[in-house]
């Protein structure tokens, strides 16, 4: 008797379709990432500045005269500087994690497996986005808030937090803008190709090319008015406003915010067009 006659049984339990498909996708993606050494290595690298900043906070609280040294003083600006300091690692983790999120599924023709189940296109995109957003939040938003908690812990006083309560929404908003922009752009690029390497090159090209163009314009015109051309400079410009420090470019912050919103909207449009269970060749 074939073995299959002994093993198969009809299932009697219920199913849960309460829109949790995106969580299943995200949880599976994060489990897969956690098993990759390269990812763990990148995460360790990304947390080194956190340790350094932690030492800085400890020193400011315990070493006499340290808080008077401008660069090492614990100020609201330090948190913005820390988040900007994470930019290289944000870039590398975005490329490492994000480039294959959809491209690998397109290569393996997996989209039809997802979408032939009770999974909507929005849930699929949300699940994939949640993987990268979680990884990026773990190196930006989470450590920044942790550092904020270290201040009263090392100083023995809530005075800094009380005087800078707006830091919590500032850190959160700045992190969300950074993470959302990076996530949407890499996912859109990932949906355009079946090669994660091509996606990585495209993303790097987009980041560096737009910044190079801005650099040339700024050099020729001797003005930073065109910083909006550089995609990720817009994030810095908006970040300065959120942390209530003088904006570093002449571009009106509202323009930078608009460019970010347009980039996210275009990425969402690309995703809505590309995430389909069928590939139509006409």
């Amino acid at each position: 008797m074939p073995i299959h006659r002994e093993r198969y049984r009809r299932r009697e339990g219920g199913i849960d379709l309460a829109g949790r498909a995106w969580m299943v996708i995200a949880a599976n993606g994060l489990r897969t990432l956690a098993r990759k050494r390269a990812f763990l290595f990148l995460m360790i690298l990304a947390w080194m500045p956190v340790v350094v900043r932690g030492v800085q906070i400890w020193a400011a609280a315990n070493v006499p005269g340290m808080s008077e040294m401008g660069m090492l003083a614990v100020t609201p600006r330090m948190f913005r500087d820390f988040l900007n300091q994470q930019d290289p690692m944000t870039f590398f983790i975005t490329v490492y994690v994000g480039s294959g999120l959809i491209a690998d599924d397109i290569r393996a023709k997996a989209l039809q497996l997802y979408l032939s189940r009770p999974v909507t296109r929005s849930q699929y995109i949300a699940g994939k986005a949640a993987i990268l957003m979680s990884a990026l939040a773990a190196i930006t938003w989470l450590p920044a808030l942790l550092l904020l908690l270290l201040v009263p812990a090392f100083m023995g006083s809530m005075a800094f937090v009380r005087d800078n309560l707006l830091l919590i929404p500032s850190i959160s908003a700045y992190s969300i803008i950074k993470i959302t922009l990076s996530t949407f752009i890499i996912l859109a690029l990932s949906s355009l190709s079946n090669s994660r390497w091509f996606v990585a090159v495209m993303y790097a090209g987009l980041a560096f090319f737009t910044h190079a163009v801005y650099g040339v314009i700024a050099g020729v015109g001797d003005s930073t008015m065109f910083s909006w051309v550089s995609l990720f400079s817009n994030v810095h410009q908006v970040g300065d406003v959120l942390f209530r420090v003088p904006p570093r470019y002449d571009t009106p912050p509202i323009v930078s915010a608009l460019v970010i919103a347009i980039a996210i909207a275009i990425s969402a449009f690309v995703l809505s067009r590309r995430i389909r269970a069928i590939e139509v060749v006409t």
Partner: protein
Amino acid sequence: MSDSVAILDRVGVRYGTQWALSDVSAVFPAGAVGLLGPNGAGKSTMLKALLGLIKPDSGRIGVLDLDVAVAPLDIRARVGYMPESDAQIPGMTAVSFVAYCAELSGLPAADAMQRAHEVLYYVGLGEARYRNVETYSTGMKQRIKLAQALVHDPDLLLLDEPTNGMDPKGREEMLALVRDIAYSRHISLILSSHVMPDVESVCDAVVVMNRGKVVMQGPIASLKKPTGHIFEVRVKGNRAAFVERLRMQAFECRETDADEFRVLVPATAGPEQLFASAAQVGAQVRHLKQSVPTLEDVFAEAMGEQ
């Protein structure tokens, strides 16, 4: 539930300017139904429309008594789909892949893992369930596609060319599995294929498609009821002229793999007309044997009518 598992009512699907399905009306009864047609007939498009993956430009589709336009997610929760092309989720072992598919279908994690093990044993991949799916052979990939379609215990299975690329032994085993699913486990299925013996060996009923239209549908047994006599014929001499002569008399002629051909002679005529026609073109009938109709005859007749 009604006796049918899927109904298409005047459905049209267009890719650009090309109609992939044109005014298609079909009823798929419960049980095993074959969806037969040459490549490009619109079979895969129909399966995807049944899942709600393609929105029809016209008409209505009902699956398991639900309207595809209204409740596509409820339908997909109760339907298992085995795609034609190789499809897997990269970087996963077979058991984690199938369990993941079960979770995506709404099963709790523990239940999904248990079902994954059971279904992998069922499709004959029990020993290979901890291997990466990407290292599987073609036959194993077909089996794992069946496993992922089956893992949430659907009420209806849509199988798109399930024996594609399999060797004869693997093909037989796959067909045995499909038969078992339909007749022992009582899961209705629609088997899309261009291989007629596969459909004939598994299915009770068939929907025949060509160029985006349904050209014939019904129980295979009744479709095979002869409207005349089928003869296997071999001739010596001017074979082409003989065939031409028969066709002029509205006899259906179909080539076979051997040097014979099959002739459908209307009930009002008899074999003597074959001899007469041969004599008229100077050919000799060397072999004449009455045969039983096959699904291929039905298919050829349907294509001929088109």
